[in-house]
């Protein structure tokens, strides 16, 4: 599709590049490419620079594996944060969600979850770095904030078994009903846990 006869080479290359992005089909790739072609040059240059900056200026925080421009990242540098609690998340975006809750401890980004069938084991995610971090003894609690899916639960249990003997308290985010949920459609496991975790009002 990109190599339609008569298509100038730079355009077909751009179409190819867009096509490789997730969720972009051949038609969308063509549309985006022609849009870029009609853009003012400064806009196109800004797009290109933004893409390059992401690749050149973003690094992984050497402490928590968060994506950052400075190493250590702003969370790890912030002395007002509780350094005894580490919230373990699947991806860097989850930190933003946790920040909105008012959580003010530290983080650790795994960059994935265990997915045994797809061959994603502990070596493929940032578990080893977490274990290393605990050696200083400063961290007293790990909050496993992986998704409540089969893979997320397996990851949480794996980490718990791995670091449990080190004397660190490992906790898991509570599971229950999301706001706006319908009881009648709720799955049995969620409902059962919601009952177990019920609270007095």
């Amino acid at each position: 599709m990109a190599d339609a006869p008569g298509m100038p080479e730079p355009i077909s290359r751009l179409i190819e590049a867009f096509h490789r992005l997730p969720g972009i089909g051949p038609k969308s790739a063509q549309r985006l490419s022609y849009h870029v072609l009609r853009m003012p040059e400064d806009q196109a240059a800004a797009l290109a620079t933004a893409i390059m900056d992401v690749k050149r200026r973003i690094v992984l925080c050497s402490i928590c594996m968060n994506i950052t421009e400075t190493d250590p990242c702003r969370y790890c540098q912030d002395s007002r944060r509780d350094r005894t609690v580490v919230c373990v998340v699947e991806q860097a975006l989850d930190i933003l969600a946790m920040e909105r809750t008012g959580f003010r401890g530290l983080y650790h980004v795994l960059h994935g979850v265990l997915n045994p069938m797809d061959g994603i084991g502990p070596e493929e995610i940032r578990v080893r770095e977490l274990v290393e971090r605990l050696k200083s003894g400063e961290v007293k609690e790990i909050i496993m904030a992986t998704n409540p899916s089969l893979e997320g639960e397996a990851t949480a249990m794996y980490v718990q078994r791995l670091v449990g003997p080190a004397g660190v308290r490992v906790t898991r985010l509570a599971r229950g009903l999301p706001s706006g949920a319908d009881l009648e459609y709720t799955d049995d496991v969620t409902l059962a846990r919601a009952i177990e975790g019920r609270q007095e009002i």
Partner: protein
Amino acid sequence: MPDRPRTYKTEGVILRRRNIGEADSIFTVFSEDLGKFDAIAKGVRKARSHMRGHLEPLTRSRFLIAQGRSLDVFTQAETIAPYRAVREDLDRSAEAIYCAELVDRLTGERQEHSDVYRLLLDELDALEAGHALHVTRLFEVRLLSILGFELQVEGCAACGGRLAEQDHLLAPAAGGLVCPACRGGSGGGRLISPRGIKVLRFARDASMEQFAGLRIDPELGRELHLALADVIRAVLEREVNAGRFVDQVARLPASRSLTGEHVQ
């Protein structure tokens, strides 16, 4: 498409999930009457999805599915068995994921295998009930047999001769145990002890519960685990990804040691 929309009902176990786009997922189901098939659930990753919890991998559910042009679409799902005890225990999760991967890799699309379905439920039920993890060995033996790779454990797989009471080679290429005389041309394998051979024979027609009740010590458990893994690797001509995970979990602290896997 002028085709009238058609829906059908079935029940099955979710084997795996692949996320597609922003909020959709494709699930591989092993169904009682349809065998293995893929279907898509639209918007299932949104917080308000009605089907989300009912489509978790390793859940047994009832589905209402609409025929789609390329992929069928889940329209309703309701849990029959959530296998909660399995998903809340790392060792049991690992065994169950391993079995799900075996079913996924060894069966073809839309080939009915109610016997495989029954076997998978037996395994999940046994793990849920807290039975010994070595029930997976029975699962492996029976799955191979249902799918036409029955292990020859009675006589020599090469010459058909009687097997004396001693260690014998389980040779994947020969499809079973081979006697000492046939070992040379058998393509190699792993030695199985007389006790191991008895367990393999018992696994052919024992019930899950009977098999779970066997006392299998760490050494024997490991012997059978490795030998059957060899056979499965030969049949699939590749590694089972989740098999590596089972071993990684077994190596964790506060668990069975590596030699102690699959033991009561």
